[in-house]
């Protein structure tokens, strides 16, 4: 008998815990049952970690518009929109972003997007110039390849508003990029995202074998030495 009451009280406690954890979802149902979708989105649009929990791995990728959580399922035209996976047939894949390697797709000729709005024969103005940016920390140096960028973009897209075309004139940091400036204007939004999987795409030039971390200013200019 004692055991049974113990179990009962435990289950009640568990239920209460779950109720508090899913309080948001329950509130949605109770307060505005007429428009549950609208309220749910408040928590859903941003992926910021609301609770202190591990980030969940996404199970399915490239869902069709009707299942992606931002298209209205009550809209008839949603069902006539093309599903991404259908369009990605035959394109090289990656493990991040759209899970399509867009640059490789152009290089392989699997994709031939227009360079001009109406003229399908116009060729892009490609410039093959690699810029090496030394990194102070132990992270490999950054190599910026102009070729891959000029396949897609025009000079005026980046210069001079985002990057001043002059050596040493641009201060770039990962925090600026993550906050959507400099490279982050595109990377992390449309072009490949900034994840642990993609660090080495930019930080690609290994440090020389005899590399040592630079001394701090205090130790270099030490007057007591």
């Amino acid at each position, binding site marked *: 008998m004692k055991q049974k009451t113990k179990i009962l009280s*435990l289950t009640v406690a568990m239920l209460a815990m779950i109720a508090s954890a899913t309080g948001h979802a329950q509130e949605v149902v109770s307060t505005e049952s007429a428009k549950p979708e609208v309220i749910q989105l408040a928590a859903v*649009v*941003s*992926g910021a970690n609301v609770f202190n929990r591990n980030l969940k791995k996404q199970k399915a990728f490239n869902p069709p518009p009707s299942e992606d959580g931002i298209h209205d399922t009550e809209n008839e035209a*949603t069902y006539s929109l093309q599903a*991404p996976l259908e369009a990605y047939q035959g394109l090289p894949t990656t493990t991040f972003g759209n899970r399509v390697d867009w640059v490789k797709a152009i290089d392989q000729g699997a994709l031939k997007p227009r360079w001009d709005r109406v003229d399908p024969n116009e060729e892009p103005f490609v410039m093959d110039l690699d810029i090496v940016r030394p990194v102070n920390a132990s992270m490999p140096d950054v190599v910026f390849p102009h070729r891959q960028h000029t396949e897609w973009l025009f000079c005026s897209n980046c210069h001079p508003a985002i990057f001043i075309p002059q050596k040493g004139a641009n201060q770039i940091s990962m925090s600026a990029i993550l906050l959507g400036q400099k490279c982050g204007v595109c990377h992390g939004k449309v072009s490949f995202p900034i994840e642990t999987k993609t660090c080495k795409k930019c930080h690609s030039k290994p440090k020389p074998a005899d590399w040592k971390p630079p001394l701090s200013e205090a130790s270099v200019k030490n007057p007591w030495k």
Partner: protein
Amino acid sequence: MSLKTKHRLVWKSLFMGMLVYMGTLGMPQPAQAEYADVVINNYADAAGMRPAVFPHWFHRIRFRCKVCHADLGFKFKAGGNKITMAKIIEGKFCGACHNGEVAWSVENCAMCHSGIPGTPTHFHGSTVQRLIAPAYKPLSKPAAQKKPVSQKK
């Protein structure tokens, strides 16, 4: 430990597991939209339309970034272009192609205006959005705008 209590323990843990599973199922699921999809809701909600959804991937297959971002003058900012239907019909922004010549024309309202009402302007899958808690208005506001009756309460 007797066999009886062992059985009880097994059942108890099974029951608890079930409860936790049911609980997590009830949690709101995050949107799984395609990377780089943009929801544009500058004026749509206030005008009683669904917000417009711009699929970057669809356009990327057909055009290079340069066409829209250099030639047509789209800024690199979600909601930063202040696109209105009047501008589109004049042939600016989306209207440069969506004119019935390069792509289908503006009569197909619901093809673009297909977002869930009340979704704020945002960039799906953006790093900034993943790192920073939302700074945009709470979603109860646009819903209240639609129903002036509930605002009076």
